């Protein structure tokens, strides 16, 4: 089975990459973005117990001083609590067959923790764009800044 894990900054921690993306979007001539939050995504394929997946998240994937995690059930769509403005999410993953070096290292690290029932790890980035945007601008942001469609695929929601 697949576990999708989202790693995000704790409240009040400076998100440098988010700021960088925000300024890149501004450089594209697109206004209306108030904030950009970034998250690191892992999709772990294997048969892990709940306890094991929790250990992986806590001991390996997050820096507990500044980060938190959530394990996302694939069937349900994540609902964000923030409602004061629109939120768009863009997820970027490597295409199948493209080497995912971080994924490979993560896989090895999980096995080194003594957890054997794991088959593969994919990594990706999630960008939460907060503000008001035209639909067409989302595609522009995805292809011009966030994903290189030669090696990556993206999903807007």
């Amino acid at each position, binding site marked *: 089975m697949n576990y999708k894990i989202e790693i995000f900054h704790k409240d009040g921690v400076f998100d440098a990459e988010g700021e960088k993306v925000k300024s890149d979007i501004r450089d594209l001539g697109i206004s209306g973005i108030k904030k950009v939050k970034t998250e690191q995504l892992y999709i772990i394929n294997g048969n892990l117990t709940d306890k094991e997946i929790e250990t992986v998240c806590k001991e390996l994937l997050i820096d507990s001083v500044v980060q938190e995690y959530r394990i996302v059930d694939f069937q349900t769509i994540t609902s964000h609590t923030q409602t004061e403005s629109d939120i768009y999410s863009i997820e970027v993953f490597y295409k199948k067959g493209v*080497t995912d070096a971080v994924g*490979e290292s993560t896989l090895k690290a999980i096995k080194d923790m003594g957890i054997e029932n794991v088959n593969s790890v994919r990594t990706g980035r999630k960008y939460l764009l907060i503000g008001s945007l035209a639909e067409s601008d989302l595609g522009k942001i995805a292809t*011009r800044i966030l994903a*290189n469609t030669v*090696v990556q695929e993206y999903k807007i929601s």
Partner: protein
Amino acid sequence: MKESLVKTIDIINTDDSTLIKISRDNLLALNLDEMKTIQDYYKKQGRNPTDIELETIAQTWSEHCKHKTLTGTINLRCNIHTGQSVTGYTEKAYNNLLKETIFRVTKELDKKWCISVFEDNAGIIDFDKDWAVAFKVETHNHPSALEPYGGAGTGIGGVIRDILGVGLGGKPILNTDVFCFGSPDTPYEKLPAGVLHPKRIFKGVVSGVRDYGNRMGIPTANGTIIFDEGYTYNPLVYCGTVGIMKKNKCFKKVNPGDYILAVGGRTGRDGIHGATFSSLALDKDTPLSPVQIGNPIMEKKVTDTVLQACERNLYTALTDCGAGGFSSAVGELGKNCGVKVYLERVPLKYEGLLPWEIWVSEAQERMVLAVPKDKLEEILKVFHDENVETTVLGEFTDTGRLEVFYKDEKICDLDMQFLHEGLPKRTMIATFQHKKFEEPSRSVFESSKPGGILKDLLSSLNICSKEWVVRQYDHEVQGQTVVKPFHGKYEGPGDACVMQPLSTTALKSKKVTYRGIAVACGINPQYGKIDSYWMTASAIDEALRNIVSVGGDPEKTALLDNFCWGSPNIPEQLGDIVRAAEACYDIAKVFSTPFISGKDSLNNDYNDEKGNRKSIPGTMLISAISIVQDIRKCVTMDIKKPGNLVYLLGETKDELGGSQLYNLYGFVGNNVPKVNPQESIGLMKSLHKAINAGIIESCHDCSEGGLGVALAEMSFAGGYGVEINLSKVKYDMRKVESEKFRNLQLLFSESNSRFVVEITQKNRKKFEKILRGKVFSCIGKARKDKKFVVCGINKKVIINENIDNLKASWQKPFSNF
């Protein structure tokens, strides 16, 4: 099922057009002549080739591996002009351009301190009694155009492996990088579909180099960035690595019977056809498979373990898997004996790769070693202990054949002789004629003040601070960087970096050595628009100037050439390439600086949807490496003390062609800076003597932006103003000009072989004695305050600026990037 994995391709019964089609459909990048040579070979064998055999030949014969343009036959025709019309031409034929120019100069100079030149993965020169240094500069242009982050990262990764794979293995100690990009301000509307925006390429390339270099723990301490519209479709990414190795580890030898050991990363479908891909022009439909993704952590492990095995003499030869993957690496190592390879043993990233894909995949972080049978157990343990995967792929034989098996089936059986020597020579036509550009009218400059122009120049993309880039790189890791990218209390741009590679080793032996290496580069494509000969001459001069400026020994400096051009199939472009190669010979001969390694990338073309060809401006990068006898004598470029004298060495000429001043106003011009190699090297030797005598306080060469920019940079780096009198500048300018324009010429002409140096009043006599007979003059002195004051030829003040403002202008473009 088994048959379906390896296809036989019918070529012996086909006509010419089908041969071309086979080459094109399979991305072999072979021309008709080459395909027919292959056809003949197989007709004699009485059979058709398998797909893997065709692929092997295509990889081995690729531009990337064989440099078939520069080693082919070239007929050059130069037009002779009388007035406006062409009245005749001269012809010259080259049998092998590289051999007759670049190799030739090295051979003729015959330096005893050159250990290995042009034969291995990198050039190797003497460092001291026991140690040698190796240097290689590669390009990774096509992959970086498609996937900047991965392309640039694997560019660095590849050249690091070149050093790891030179001789019996060098330890990488320094990375250099030079980039050429389109303008970051290019409007999106101007870009065709499929072309990434220059800003995105820029950011991606920088992060790729940063992440790979930093994670490998190798300092990146030298480089430059050039911006020109011509690189919008084809950016250039040059990556270089310097390594250090024991002198008794500089040569490899493969013995029949040795095992072929593959070490490092697993093989996937990454980067298939990279070698042949570099022979093709890009277009919208360029396929994705050539793109590679790097894994620096893996490469770090491979490097550490290979160096351990090297120390313990556990192998007799090695090379890296670069372009062409196993096919090139194994084929190259075994070319004088023979090999047997069993492909099913190769560990794969995922299932489903066809045998030929395994064979030519350019998956990263892999090395191939020749291991004597009795060392196998020990070497496997070295890698196993550090979690590096190894596979015995097969063995070297004495059959003179390249034999590849897949699950008991022989799928490739090629004669090594044919594979490596069978490539038919190309014959190409080159033409050359002098180009003429519009010369700006003097009124263009009328309304601008020299101080304003200076600030505009400092803010121009090719001169401004690249701190945003440099600060992302770790230039200190390994703790050997002596002269760093930024100099002075207030950080101005240095000319070259200096490393002290044996500091840690020396500590262990308690014998301190102050010997170091200086590494620098020279590049200026603006000049090449006018004349590639003088562009190359200038690049060599600039590289050597930079070396000398920091304290490198001009008499112990080796050069590397990197040609990047649009298309050698266009006779005018090939003519420029030939002229550039000629300059390499002419200038290096007089400078007495041998070339030790080089690389060309000749298909930097883009065909847009309408079929218009967009070529890059012909670009020559010259990299230089030099020995510094005593790093304590190295000099930086920042002004050190008020009251010190400022000298200009070398003659200023009417050479604004291709200058940044003209570029600022949208002109190219015609008076390209030339080089008088005798005078230049004479001056550099004297300057080196003065630096060794310890009487030079600071030194900076004049390059882009000329004297004006050099002075401003020295001034704001040290935090002291200067007062300069242009009437003291020694110049040779015949054409009568207005006073105002003459001042601009003196300030911004980019004449080569010039240095600005600072000395104390006390050392004045000593200095002038060392420089006797050379062109030089004292043009001013350093001030106590922050005023940058320049008086024109009529002694009137023409510039009066605060150095903080000058620095702010210099830092502006990338301050908030």
